[in-house]
């Protein structure tokens, strides 16, 4: 099979994978870690420990706060100091558990040997329980709890498991490094998820700019010999790693507006999530570590790193370990340059989904002043969802929610292609994100009203 890609829109930013040659190093432990209770999509977790409690590495410190939520484990051993609100990356208050680090004592149930465990357990329910108990969430960016995604709703069948190794965001190399250094674990993780989903085939999608990862993953697939797993080379194009775009590229199916990937028989998981699933099921290790890239557009290669970090380590500590903030840096970003968030608060802590700290120079980040739309249509050409960003922008400013909904503002995946391609430097994404929020509010309110009306009608019918 040739190289594949998605059918509509997309842009080609320079991939800037400067830190690709930096092997994963383990980050030393700081004196204190702050574990956030909102590290996943959905309801925040509820702390189970109290100040003064002794904890060991891998011990559960918080339980899910709802159906879509996840367990949180202690990344270090030591004493719980406080459970208090603390400012996150964006300056908003979130509950954090502060733990003073004392030694490095692990929960004895965790298998820390490097030996590869290839035998896959038979009991699906037990596997799912382990994934849930390990607090595994999607590490591709959205941090959606993995066990929820791996349980298709009744009536829906998974026809294909897609492992996302696209890493289409420029600069990031954390997924690339784990594919090069730990391919076998990822493949075993994929086989475990295949088992849970009822033995559907699995496609590992990797962009063509990562030949080393393609080679290592292909070798691991061939060596381990699980049935139905294959590596698929994808063309380099942003946002290939978007769930709907990846499904389009690999399966040539489109998820309809408001639909879920499972509607077209697809389940998409990141390669890092697959590694976390392997560790959770085969090694009893909860999700307490992840890989984070330190890189930048004007940073010398010797100062770039791929760190294996314990979740909860403050960003300021990581930056310090990596040699401080370089003078050339004008903006720090957590995540990729396209979808990542600017860091306004270095005291913030790392979370399960942290993937990078980017140092970008003034030239690379400074926004140009906004000018008038020249109606060139580049944004509509670039939109991978087939939307018309210029139109949505105008409708948002006019406050026309009905027209916004008709023009599918709610389908925006916030990839930033429109903003990237706009020659007038209009902050299209910023406005469309607002519009999307408002339209989603209207849709949710309507659904709630319809549900209430249906219930009222049912109650009335029963009363008769």
């Amino acid at each position: 099979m040739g190289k594949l890609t998605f059918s509509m829109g997309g842009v080609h930013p320079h991939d800037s994978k400067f830190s690709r040659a930096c092997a994963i190093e383990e980050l030393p432990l700081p004196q204190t870690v702050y574990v956030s209770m909102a590290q996943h999509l959905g309801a925040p977790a509820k702390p189970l420990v109290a100040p003064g409690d002794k904890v060991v590495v891998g011990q559960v410190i918080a339980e899910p706060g709802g159906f879509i939520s996840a367990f949180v484990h202690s990344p270090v051993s030591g004493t719980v100091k406080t459970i208090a609100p603390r400012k996150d990356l964006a300056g908003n208050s979130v509950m954090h558990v502060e733990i003073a680090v004392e030694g490095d004592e692990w929960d004895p149930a965790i298998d820390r040997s490097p030996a590869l465990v290839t035998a896959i357990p038979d009991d699906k329910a037990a596997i799912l329980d382990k994934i849930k108990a390990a607090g595994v969430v999607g590490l591709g960016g959205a941090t959606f709890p993995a066990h929820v995604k791996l349980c298709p709703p009744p009536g829906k069948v998974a026809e294909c498991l897609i492992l996302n190794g696209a890493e289409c965001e420029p600069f990031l190399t954390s997924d690339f490094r784990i594919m090069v250094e730990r391919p076998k674990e990822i493949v075993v993780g994929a086989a475990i998820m295949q088992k849970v989903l009822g033995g559907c085939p699995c496609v590992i999608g990797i962009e063509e700019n990562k030949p080393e990862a393609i080679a290592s993953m292909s070798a691991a697939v061939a060596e381990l010999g699980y049935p139905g797993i294959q590596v698929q080379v994808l063309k380099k194009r942003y946002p290939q790693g978007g769930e709907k775009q990846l499904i389009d590229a690999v399966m040539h199916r489109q998820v309809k507006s408001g639909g879920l990937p499972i509607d077209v028989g697809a389940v998409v998981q990141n390669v890092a999530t697959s590694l976390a699933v392997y560790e959770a099921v085969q090694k009893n290790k909860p999700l307490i570590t992840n890989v984070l890239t330190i890189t930048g557009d004007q940073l010398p290669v010797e100062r770039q790193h791929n760190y294996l970090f314990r979740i909860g380590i403050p960003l300021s500590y990581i930056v310090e370990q990596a040699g401080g903030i370089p003078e050339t840096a004008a903006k720090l970003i957590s995540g990729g340059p396209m979808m990542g968030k600017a860091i306004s608060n270095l005291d913030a802590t790392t979370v399960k989904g942290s993937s990078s700290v980017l140092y970008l120079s003034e030239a690379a980040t400074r926004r140009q002043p906004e000018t008038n739309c020249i109606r060139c249509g580049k944004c509509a050409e670039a939109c991978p969802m087939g939307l018309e960003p210029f139109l949505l922008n105008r409708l948002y400013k006019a406050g026309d929610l009905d027209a916004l909904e008709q023009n599918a503002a709610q389908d925006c995946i916030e990839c930033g292609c429109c903003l990237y391609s706009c020659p007038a430097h209009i902050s299209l994404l910023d406005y469309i994100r607002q519009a999307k929020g408002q339209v989603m509010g209207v849709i949710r309110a309507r659904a709630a009203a319809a549900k209430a009306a249906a219930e009222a009608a049912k109650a009335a019918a029963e009363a008769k």
Partner: protein
Amino acid sequence: MTQTIIWTVAILTVLGLLLALILFWVARKFKVEEDPRIDEVEKVMPGANCGGCGFAGCRAFADAAVKAPNLDNQYCPVGGDEVMQKVASILGFTVAAKAPQVAVVRCNGSCEARPRTNEYDGAKSCRVKAALYSGDTGCAFGCLGCGDCVAACQFGALSMDPATGLPVVDEDKCTACGACAKACPKHIIELRLKGPRGMREFVSCMNKDKGPAAKKACANACIGCGLCAKTCTHDAITVTDNVAYIDFNKCKLCRECEAVCPTGAIHGVNFPKELDKEAVKKRIADRKAKAAEAAQAAEEKKEVANG
């Protein structure tokens, strides 16, 4: 020839009469009965169509007013009592006079008091900025300074002060329609009673952080110390979530809270004299001493009575 002309005229005349009859019948049959008072009420309305009353525009207000059993739930903030009296006289209702309100900005985190901790260069919109992060200062509750309120005001009553970076309300132009309060993503603009001769007292801060954190973010922040609430003799001040709030229905404009506030978060406006803080503090101290004396005397009396 003549006959043709006669026929033509006759046919057209008959046809015209027939059609006129049909039109007349249709007009009678499908006539929309509209209360003429709606037009009358609409005429006395300000015609700003601002939506400050909660209706889609002045005609929608008039329509609702005519259909309503009384005018208790309707009020035109732009026209005020004058317009409401006119509306009431047209419809034969009586309305009680309402004290005029004005928009008040509850943030005094000027550039000086609230140092910028980062730089924002995104879209110039408070809503967008608020959705992205807590703002370019250490305070997550204060004014974002992009002027969504100014854009929302139809009456030109709001402007950004370049020196402080905060919006300023022109009291003469403000109609208290509430559009700015709705536009502000941080909800710092509140409609408050204008007060006698425009005099009013309010806490110009919304910071819910604990004292030290609030103080660190902004020198003018309310730190929730509660001194004002302890001092107030009218029971008008409450402190919830580390922020004081003055109930404008209870406030008697004695300005004691303003004098004792350690950070200057309480503002009094339009008072004829400048506040002499020391004099007010002395007054409070005297009153407290007197109260203590009285309490002691009462205690002694009690003891004597018991003994």
